[in-house]
């Protein structure tokens, strides 16, 4: 399993003021921070940029890929879709089941209204038309993880349809805004899980997941490469987290993407034969799997062997970095859909929808546009809006009076580095937006130097407390009295006659040495501007 965290940061150690020098080495922007609860269990696998772009640019210009995505979002409702069982990932097999989700004779489903609320939220956020009168249908097939022999789903009248999703493509992939169409969003229930014994002589069924609510989001075939597909999926993840309808965790299967990939010669309007790719456990594997699949299909096309591209389901193998055949489709499966007679129609009132519309939070796209208007660079914008909690922290800092640029810089450099090193999320750190704002104000007002500011920051991050307290307790107020600084400068010069001689002999680089010594003598509190000004005066005065 691979997992890509947010970008790696490198902070220049000598700069006195916090600056965001963002060196993206590994990983991509489509990734999102890990939710707190599961973080410790995650491992981070880095994806090499070069291998990714190699694949990407391998697509010859004569062909284009057409990609559509089906995303299953597991809803974070307290109970399952049609019964009162709670669901939590990883609990003991069959410990959270009841007659309803086991499909016992005589048991009936009763819809959890939260499922409708979440579906409407997501439908609105995806700019869809809502069906004010929709229904559930039964999708019928036999499998041991499907207790009733049918899945309760929505067939011909999905609760939401015909929407779109706006995505910002990161600069390194050309940047810009893309709009991807959403075909439909519908409600359905999850199935259980099969556990196969090592010897393979029998299988066991775990029904904990059976009946957990899902929203299936079907995109239009609007994506053209792995990056676009991964960006689309990452935006869906951001969206469901912003809306609070799902934890969006791919490793736990709370967000599952199946992609359909086909290739056609440029200019041809008919789609090529599509292949479904499964087992995509991260955005990065999604991107790589698609790019691999595109190259595979393009190769077959260019060799005149496009008839070897068949409608099938292929599995992404992380180990060998390729897709392999899982099952060929033998004709179309007939699911014999018909309206679910155990559940009444789903009727939405305008009032209900309006209520949800007004309660929607600011969505990632809206946030990015707002940050952009504040004058932040695209990288800052994407980073800050990427994680709902970071965005909230940032917004709270601004609300306390900090300016956007400084707040963004602090968050993206030192705070992000700290969280990464300590494996914490922004909700875990002891620093509050109020204190960050105070810190920025203290530096701006010249009360402390930037360097001291950074020291205070790390103390705030680790231990909490207030900026004012720390400054007072440690006597960290910046020295801005020229007389006092001059005294220190004179003292340092007197104590270093050799270096002074060398300096005056032309080795002016030694100015840095003197500055450092003075700063050291002031315990870092001297105002650097004043210090340098006075130092130069003294060094150059030929008395």
């Amino acid at each position, binding site marked *: 399993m691979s997992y890509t965290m947010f970008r790696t940061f490198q902070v220049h150690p000598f700069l006195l003021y916090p600056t965001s020098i963002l060196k993206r080495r590994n990983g991509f922007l489509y990734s999102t921070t890990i939710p707190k609860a599961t973080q410790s269990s995650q491992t981070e696998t880095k994806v090499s940029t070069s291998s990714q772009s190699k694949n990407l640019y391998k697509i010859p210009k004569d062909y284009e890929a057409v990609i559509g995505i089906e995303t299953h979002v597991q809803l974070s409702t307290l109970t399952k879709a049609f019964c009162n069982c709670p669901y939590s990932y990883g609990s003991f097999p069959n410990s959270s089941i009841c*007659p309803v989700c*086991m*499909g*016992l*004779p*005589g*048991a*009936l*489903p*009763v*819809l959890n209204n939260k499922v409708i609320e979440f579906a409407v939220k997501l439908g609105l956020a995806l700019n869809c038309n809502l069906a004010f009168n929709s229904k559930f249908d*039964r999708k*019928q097939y*036999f499998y*041991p993880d499907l*207790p*009733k*022999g*049918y899945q309760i789903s929505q067939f011909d009248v999905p609760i939401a349809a015909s929407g779109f999703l706006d995505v910002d493509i990161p600069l390194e992939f050309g940047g810009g805004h893309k709009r991807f169409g959403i075909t439909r969003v519908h409600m359905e229930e999850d199935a259980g899980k099969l556990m196969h014994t090592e010897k393979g002589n029998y299988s066991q*069924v775990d*029904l904990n997941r059976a009946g957990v609510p899902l929203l299936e989001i079907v995109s239009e075939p609007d994506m053209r490469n792995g990056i676009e597909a991964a960006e689309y999926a990452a935006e869906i993840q951001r969206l469901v987290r912003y809306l609070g309808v799902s934890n969006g965790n791919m490793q736990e299967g709370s967000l599952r993407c199946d992609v359909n990939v086909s290739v056609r010669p440029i200019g041809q309007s008919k789609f090529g034969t599509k292949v479904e790719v499964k087992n995509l456990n991260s955005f990065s594997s999604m991107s790589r799997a698609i790019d691999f699949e595109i190259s595979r299909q393009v190769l077959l096309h260019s060799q005149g062997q496009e008839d070897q591209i068949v409608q099938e389901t292929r599995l992404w193998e992380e180990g060998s970095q390729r897709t392999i055949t899982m099952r060929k489709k033998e004709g*179309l499966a*007939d699911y*014999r*859909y*018909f309206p679910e*007679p*155990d*559940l*009444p129609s789903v009727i939405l009132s305008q009032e209900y929808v309006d209520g949800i519309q007004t309660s929607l939070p600011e969505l990632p796209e809206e946030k990015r546009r707002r940050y952009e208007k504040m004058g932040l660079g695209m990288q800052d914008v994407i980073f800050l809006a990427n994680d709902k909690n970071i965005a909230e922290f940032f917004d709270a800092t601004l609300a306390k009076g900090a300016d956007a640029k400084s707040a963004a810089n602090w968050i993206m450099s030192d705070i992000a580095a700290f969280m990464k090193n300590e494996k914490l999320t922004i909700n875990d750190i002891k620093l509050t937006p109020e204190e960050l704002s105070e810190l920025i104000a203290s530096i701006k007002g010249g009360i402390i130097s930037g360097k001291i500011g950074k020291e205070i920051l790390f103390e705030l991050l680790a231990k909490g407390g207030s900026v004012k307290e720390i400054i007072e307790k440690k006597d960290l107020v910046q020295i801005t009295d020229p007389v006092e600084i001059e005294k220190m400068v004179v003292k340092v010069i007197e104590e270093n006659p050799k270096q002074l001689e060398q300096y005056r002999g032309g080795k002016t680089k030694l100015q840095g040495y003197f500055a450092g010594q003075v700063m050291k003598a002031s315990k870092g509190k001297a105002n650097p501007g004043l210090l340098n000004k006075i130092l130069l005066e003294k060094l150059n005065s030929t008395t």
Partner: protein
Amino acid sequence: MLSTLQTPRSSLSRFTLPSTITTLASNSQSTLTTTQSPTTSPPQSQILSIRHSLLTRNLSAVDLARSYLTRLRLTEPHLRSFLHIPDDQTIISQANDLDRRIAAGKDVGPLAGVLVAVKDNICTADMPSTGGSRILQNYRPPFDATAVKKLKELGGIVVGKTNMDEFGMGSTTEASAFQVTANPWDVSRVPGGSSGGSAAAVSARQCVVSLGSDTGGSVRQPASFCGVVGLKPTYGRVSRFGLMAYASSLDAIGCFGSSVADTGILLHAIAGHDRFDATSSKQEVPNFLSHFDSASSLESKPLKGLRVGLIRETIEDGVDAGVVSAIRAAASHFEELGCSVNEVSLPSFSLGLPAYYVLALSESSSNLSRYDGIRYGNQVHADELDSLYGDSRAKGLGSEVKMRILMGTYALSAGYYDAYYKRAQQVRTIIRNSFKEALDQYDILISPAAPSVAYKIGEKKNDPLAMYAGDIMTVNVNLAGLPALVLPCGFVDSEPAGLPVGLQMIGAAFDEGELLRVGHIFEQTLENCRFVPPLVADSVE
């Protein structure tokens, strides 16, 4: 076979069931008495007389239970109504608890001491529930159906699980995987189905009342065949939670009793909204009995002004002459009671049968998918998953069930959905509308409950179409979701005894109260009819 009952008759006659006190009925003076027949008396509410006897300490619940159990043990070898009967002690100890409560002056529920038989497709936590199917042999549900839970809470005692056509698929109870139930009026005949066991059990007084289920007539037709009162409530009136689904949009749990009052009391006990059934209605459940008049207080025209529509299509060709004449006599009786009776035509009536079978079988093909041998029920071991499914279902399900699953699967298949399922839904809408129109003009609609009286065991077993055609009288009511009450209204001559004919009364949605009121008056004023089969007549007063 009656001879086998001769010896213990004396012991049975020792405890005659209480018959003296009832607020509802009196056999003394009917103002409508036209004949002087001292032997017939209108049926009385067993439930009310039991309650009275218990509360006045004339009878203990234990004695009552013993008397029923004795009759049950005597008659059961001839009838085979039950698939499961708990040991006597289980029932006696429940009765004992009630006696102690009564002795302590504590409240007991309105069904206290009432022995209720429950159809085997209705889940009971402490007894097997097989739905009459081999695939669920020995299956014990971990919960009580809502209807069972309610009647237990009100003091009812479940006396056993009754035989039925496998998963409700049949009209004779011959399609049970385990046994064939006999009709108490003539043990060479079928009791009807699919709730044949529940109907036979009430008819033979093996229990006081019973629960059945009605998807296309499975309560009403056996009630007619067995000469008992059967009530199919409005769709949604009674929770289906715990009823093994046959066709979810048509299924209803129904009630059997030996009087209209008893079915009304039982319905009141089990009706109402249930948060575990999304299709159960929030309509208020009225006290059905509060509108009942006792027979003695009836005026000469107690149903004056009531508009009764006799559905013309139900008394035409294909319906036995004896049945038609009994229904016409019932119509005359309504007129004597002050009703205006007119024939009404429902042109869509004959469309009901094909539409019903398409919809019911489509839904059943889906509902029965869960019987796959994976989680419960009988599993046939196999090396491959497909064989596990195939073999478990091949061995566990009967031929009638398999045929219906195949037909339903076909009707829902791609390319056929529009021609069958969708079209049948359109027909259903037409039928619903035509019933609504007719019920705007008439207060109740009447028809036979079945085109014939009970037929011989085996007679139609190999002719499914003839058997399906027998459902013509009842399926429309399920398609329209309406309530219907069947009560015995006469006999067709036969040997060794006459066979009862059931009258079906159809009312507006959620108007069971009116059906019960009218049915009660009809029943209390009907002369010369005693619907107790000869098999048990001596032990029932």
